[in-house]
């Protein structure tokens, strides 16, 4: 496959970036999108040019570090996959592919296609945990009965890998899907109820402080999320937030 890549290049956080065009040849349909970028980088390095910097770690769809806005969609045109699992067979010979970093004020570009997603870490740190004493007297989690439906919903929410595609897809760069998944996974379990009030208030406050936008319920996040996190989580977080605010 012969392709034309238009890739965002930016030296550092302060520099002004631009799209640069790179023709590439010999791409197989079985390669992943990141392997295609590896081929590109090998060529650039051999020519003595700066390789394109992009984030990746597990390359099996579980760590959430790969990102990339590919032809106007986070993680590209396929559904329920991360960029590392996106296959080149989704593209055709002769295609032009535009590759940009995830864009949000709260995700500043570090270099080329790599953005700083530590705003997500700070939202997690604001309440995405339960306080348990682990110094020798831990209680077995199975001693607390949990209804099957709630356990399943909680596990579904917990599959969020924190990739940021929801923010990237949203016209408002809103982090509601991510934050609501992190709120929901605890809100649905008895262990999480104890700190539920402070959790939702603190996590939403941090989300707002980081400069993410407001939710317009367009649903773009749900469609682009590689883990299929549902909009119901956002409604649940809104409910949690409202009742927490009324409690004071």
């Amino acid at each position, binding site marked *: 496959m012969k392709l034309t890549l238009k890739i965002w290049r930016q030296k550092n956080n302060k520099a002004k970036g631009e799209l640069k065009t790179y023709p590439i040849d010999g791409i197989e349909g079985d390669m992943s999108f990141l392997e295609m970028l590896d081929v590109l980088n090998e060529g650039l390095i051999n020519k003595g040019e700066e390789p394109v910097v992009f984030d990746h770690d597990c390359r099996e769809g579980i760590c959430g570090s790969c990102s990339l806005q590919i032809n106007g969609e986070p993680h590209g045109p396929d559904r329920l996959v991360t960029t590392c699992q996106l296959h080149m067979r989704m593209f055709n010979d002769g295609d032009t592919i535009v590759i940009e970093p995830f864009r949000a004020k709260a995700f500043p570009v570090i270099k080329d296609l790599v953005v700083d997603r530590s705003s997500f870490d700070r939202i997690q740190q604001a309440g995405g945990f339960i306080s348990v004493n682990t110094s020798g007297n831990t209680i077995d989690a199975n001693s607390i009965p949990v209804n099957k439906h709630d356990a399943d919903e909680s596990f579904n929410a917990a599959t969020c890998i924190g990739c940021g595609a929801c923010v990237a*897809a949203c016209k408002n760069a809103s982090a509601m899907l991510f934050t609501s998944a992190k709120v929901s996974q605890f809100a649905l379990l008895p262990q999480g109820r104890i700190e539920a009030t402070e959790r939702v208030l603190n996590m939403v406050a941090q989300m707002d402080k980081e400069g993410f*936008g407001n939710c317009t319920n367009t649903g773009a996040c749900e469609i682009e999320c590689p883990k299929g996190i549902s909009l119901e989580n*956002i409604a649940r977080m809104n409910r949690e937030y409202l009742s927490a605010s009324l409690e004071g």
Partner: protein
Amino acid sequence: MAILSSSIARKVAMALSGLFLVLFLAQHFTINITSVIDPDTFNNLSHFMGHNFVVQFIAQPILIFGVVFHFIMGLVLEIRNRNARQISYNSFKGNKNSTWASRNMIISGAVILAFLGLHFYDFWFPEIVHKYVESNPLDATRYYPELLHKFESPVRTGLYCLAFVLLALHLWHGFSSSFQSMGWNNKYSKGLRGFTQFYAIFIPLGFIFIALYLHFNQ
């Protein structure tokens, strides 16, 4: 206004004011449709609305506050949302994951706002002048002829119809979105969505029908 300092609180306020306007719209439609069914009923209802103390001095100010609040909050959200992505994408395929109506509430809203300007100029200001400035004697039969006269103009009729199309788009997304904003998403939501989308088409289409009917039955 401290309570409106969080993103979720702002969205709930948006939803509540939007739902209030949805209710008002249904009431407005009910009165207007009588103009094509029975002009006498239309005259009587208009006279009642125009001279009832509760309607004029309690419901009307609340309504005006609701509209102003809704569009100012919509503007605040729009500005904040634009600010949350300062460098835009070279390629952004919104159509792949969301509807045009949901992404362009500010555009449909702005058209409705412009329409409201025209609508106030057409009906509200003349009414206020007629009743409170000129202190004309009561006349319960003047409303239908005045209405008919307004819809003589093809330009005005066209502008009204255009605004109703944008209103339909605004409600297509907005009416069901407001329930999600208030945290209501459960097994009834699919049915509710069907109802909200029926409303979003039926009411604006009804207003278009009234405008065209009056225009062609001069």
